[in-house]
């Protein structure tokens, strides 16, 4: 039996910063992650972060990761790796340690920081080895230092598509092009400029129509791309065959919300934030009392917002246990929310800020109805 105040599921940026914040205020915190190494997606992010200095702009993802790990350790947080959380039940939270030992925990608060998974894209040939997630490419080249292919087509020009394209070049691979279905590039201009300067063509209003196999059907041999009309249909006669061995898919992420669902949390839908998301309030608490969400699971954004959301959930959970005097807690939460608003600026950020606000408003309305 594990005795803990707050159980955090997921040791990515959101989970680790939630744990640090709560432990700093005297809560006993346990973090579980199914991987053998902590950090979630942070250690694959070798680019410098954006934003102001307060948001660690200019610092690379993995350096933030090491700093957070040191902090969590020095605060006495227990980090259980190789530990899967498989469900949240009335009897407690179910964990499997090292694929063998089944453990039931009864924490007083739970923070879900389980992240997101990459969306696939269906087209003829999409199951061939060589059609891979862009994030998977990032993981292999930056964390494990092995190439996934030599000549890559990137599908999607959002920030993940652009950043991973650049990282592919840094790893020594060739990026033959980036296709984007919309008429303009999806990610930040600076990232797009970097890959263009390196000679990578970005084909807007284009998509991949098929992946062609090699002779024994064991790997991608080429990609066929085509121009799209205004209804997003490929225009016949515009097909172009590109000589590639890898097609990397960067068409968005879906929050991993299964645990919130099992726990009985109410959901809402936001296409912009990645799909079905647990409804939550300003403190990131779901409709299940004491169950919080932070990071991608509460709506797909970026590592920088995941760090801040983690802090918010950590403060809120610790405060609800009486670990932080109310006035101080409210002040802290206000400061973090302000910092989140700063991060959610610009054409993409503004839309995310609005989508997040809608979720909080919907939650407030629901509570109003309940108490009425």
């Amino acid at each position, binding site marked *: 039996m594990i005795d803990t105040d707050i159980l955090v599921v997921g040791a990515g940026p959101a989970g680790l910063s939630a744990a640090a914040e709560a432990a700093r205020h005297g809560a006993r915190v346990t973090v579980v992650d*199914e*991987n*053998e190494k902590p950090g979630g*997606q942070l250690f694959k992010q*070798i680019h410098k972060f954006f934003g102001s200095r307060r948001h660690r702009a200019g610092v*690379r993802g993995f350096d933030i990761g090491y700093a957070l790990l040191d902090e969590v350790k020095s605060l006495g947080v227990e980090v259980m790796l190789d530990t899967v959380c498989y469900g949240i039940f009335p009897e407690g939270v179910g964990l499997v340690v090292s694929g063998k030992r089944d453990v039931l925990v009864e924490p007083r608060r739970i923070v879900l920081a389980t992240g997101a*998974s*990459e969306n*696939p894209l269906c087209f003829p040939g999409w*199951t*061939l*080895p*060589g*059609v*891979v*997630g862009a*994030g*998977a*490419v990032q*993981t*292999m*080249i*930056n964390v*494990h*230092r*092995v*190439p*996934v292919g030599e000549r890559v087509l990137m599908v999607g020009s959002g920030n993940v598509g652009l950043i991973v394209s650049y990282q592919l070049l*840094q*790893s*020594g691979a060739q990026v033959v092009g980036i296709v984007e279905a919309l008429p303009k590039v999806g990610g930040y201009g600076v990232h797009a400029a970097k890959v263009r300067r390196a000679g990578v063509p970005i084909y807007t209003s284009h998509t991949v129509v098929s992946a062609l196999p090699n002779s024994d*059907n*064991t*790997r991608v041999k080429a990609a066929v791309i085509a121009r799209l009309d205004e209804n997003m249909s490929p225009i016949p006669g515009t097909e172009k065959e590109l000589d590639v061995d890898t097609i990397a898919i960067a068409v968005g992420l879906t929050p*991993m919300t299964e645990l919130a669902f099992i726990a009985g949390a109410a959901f809402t839908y936001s296409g912009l934030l990645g799909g079905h998301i647990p409804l939550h309030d300003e403190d990131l608490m779901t409709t299940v009392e004491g169950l919080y969400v932070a990071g991608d699971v509460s709506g797909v954004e970026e590592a920088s917002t995941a760090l801040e959301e983690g802090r918010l959930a950590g403060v809120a959970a610790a405060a609800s246990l009486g670990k932080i005097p109310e006035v101080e807690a409210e002040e802290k939460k206000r400061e973090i929310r302000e910092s989140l608003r700063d991060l959610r600026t610009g054409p993409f950020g503004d839309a995310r800020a609005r989508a997040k606000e809608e979720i909080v408003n919907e939650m407030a309305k629901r509570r109003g109805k309940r108490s009425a």
Partner: protein
Amino acid sequence: MKRISDHPILGPLPEAREVWITVDGERLQAREGEPILAALLAHGIHVQNISRKKKAPRGLFCGIGRCTGCVMTVDGVPNVRTCVTPVRDGMVIETQEGLGKWGDRK
């Protein structure tokens, strides 16, 4: 073997103890602690299993244990996600057919 040995941001590839694994009968070198899949990619192996219905080769998609594209039979245990399972010295790894079969477990 294909490794990203020099990197403009990450620097030279750190030293790692070498371990040996057997893949479909062939002995291959791997780096201690790396996922099975990384070792396979380093040796240019891109097929991890053959799908059940269409008998089509499958491999890496997500790299973080979500999609099961990379499952193989490891030490007699079928459906092991090789992208999140570290290599161990002496591991026996087989390309899996369909849902796989339980073999002799060590």
